[in-house]
């Protein structure tokens, strides 16, 4: 018995639709699971209190500070490096051995697993440079983790700037740097910011590399050289050590909310940027 090709078509299409729906379902399930239990537990106190009894009670304020501090350092370091690299690749060279090498490096860096970054951050920042388990060690490690993302999105944004803008700037007596700084970069800004937001999202969720470089102290950090725990790390420790499922749910929910907000901001910006290009 041979199945007609139209039946095959039907079966195939149904299978695909079901797969897609299942995927969507799973995603909703995952988010829903954590949010349903955790969201109600997020109170003002939860966000601003100190943790007590290893996190069994109290709040998560040091971890929020920790997450923000590490992310800010990562952004401050990675953005100039990433945008500078993108500018060099797009405005200052053509395809050459050097540019191919740079791209190769960036692609490889993007594929390195976070645990390897953790090992590197540990041996290099914590031990070799003597920075210890600290905000600065964690932030610098995060910076090199998000560097490829920023390079990639910055390059796309710069590439999208119309050539005529550049030609006009040169024709009016602009140097290469003036043209880049006054025309290309301002025009690419929305795209660059989107990339930065993506980097922020990654930083917020990162765990493996952070544990090995920023430590897991629950104390409120008092300097850049103090160790700190981020929300993601706290969530992990709470869940794995079985300290408190309630607190884990709440922390997880807070984490998800943060990431949802960052993602929406990035998408919103991207939309506005694309609309602007159409004009």
């Amino acid at each position, binding site marked *: 018995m041979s199945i007609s090709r139209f039946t095959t078509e039907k079966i195939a299409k149904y299978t695909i639709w079901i797969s897609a729906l299942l995927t969507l379902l799973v995603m909703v399930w995952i988010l829903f699971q954590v949010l349903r239990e955790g969201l109600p537990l997020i109170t003002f106190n939860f966000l601003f209190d100190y943790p007590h009894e290893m996190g069994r009670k109290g709040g998560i304020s040091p971890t929020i500070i920790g997450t923000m501090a590490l992310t800010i350092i990562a952004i401050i370091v990675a953005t100039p490096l990433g945008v500078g690299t993108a500018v060099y690749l797009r405005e200052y060279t053509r395809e050459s051995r050097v540019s191919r090498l740079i791209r190769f490096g960036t692609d490889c860096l993007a594929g390195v697993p976070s645990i390897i970054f953790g090992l590197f951050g540990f041996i290099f920042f914590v031990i070799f440079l003597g920075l210890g388990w600290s905000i600065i060690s964690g932030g610098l490690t995060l910076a090199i983790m998000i560097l490829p993302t920023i390079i990639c999105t910055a390059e796309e944004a710069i590439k999208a700037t119309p050539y*005529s803008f*550049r*030609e006009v700037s040169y024709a009016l*007596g*602009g140097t290469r740097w003036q043209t880049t700084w006054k025309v290309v970069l301002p025009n690419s800004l929305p795209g660059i910011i989107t990339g930065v937001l993506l980097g922020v999202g990654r930083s917020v969720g990162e765990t493996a590399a952070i544990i090995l470089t920023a430590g897991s102290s629950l104390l409120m950090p008092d300097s850049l050289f103090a160790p700190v725990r981020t929300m993601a790390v706290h969530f992990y420790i709470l869940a794995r050590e079985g300290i408190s499922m309630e607190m884990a749910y709440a922390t997880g929910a807070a984490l998800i909310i943060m990431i949802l907000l960052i993602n929406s901001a990035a998408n919103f910006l991207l939309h506005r940027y694309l609309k602007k290009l159409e004009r």
Partner: protein
Amino acid sequence: MPFEGKILIQNFHFFYENTLALKNINLRIDEKQIFAILGPARSGKTTLLKSLNRLTDLIHGTRHTGNIFLDGQEIFDSSISLPELRRRVGMVFDLPTPLPLSIFENVAYGPRLKGQSQKNKLQEIVEAALKAAALWEEVKDRLNNSAFRLSGGQQQRLCIARVLALDPEVIMLDEPCSGLDPISTRAIEETLYELKKKYTIVIVPHNIQQASRIADRVAFFLGGELIEEGPVAQIFTKPQKKITEDYLSGKYG
């Protein structure tokens, strides 16, 4: 002999990679006149213009032989400052290309690049440039609006004002009126007529009629070669070559 005229082009060949785009051009452009460069598409007119301010340097794989002199000085000399050259030899492109800035900032862009940052000085320069481009009256109350809100003709006059703000010596216009309505075209032509008293104008006209309206001298290009050049009256009434005559009478285009 070689150091005459505002611009002197000598034995100039231009290559895009291995394609010869301009072949043995010898041309002299004197100051304070409107010099029109005519010819069908792909004759090398834009390439010639972009060579005069070395915008061709931006394109990879281009090279040339021969010389181009501006006021007796070779422009391809390594001691020449490119930004300075491009300020002296300004260019208006065929499509209006305002920068994503306000009207004021568009005109002030060039002077700012040069280093001028004093607010009142910039305001003087912008006003003078917009007046010379016959745009001041129309925009003086909305200088902070986006330049994109202007009409096509106004945008093009903005581009002229942008160039004027740098006080150039030569103004090049590459089909500046393409896509513009007759009224805007007329306005720009009248502006050019005024400007030629002070500047040297090199224009690739939109059509032959425009050349006959405003040019003082005309050069006819075909396939990258200069066929002939001379005063506008002479070229139009008594062209020396048959292909020139055929082109001017519309036998091909």
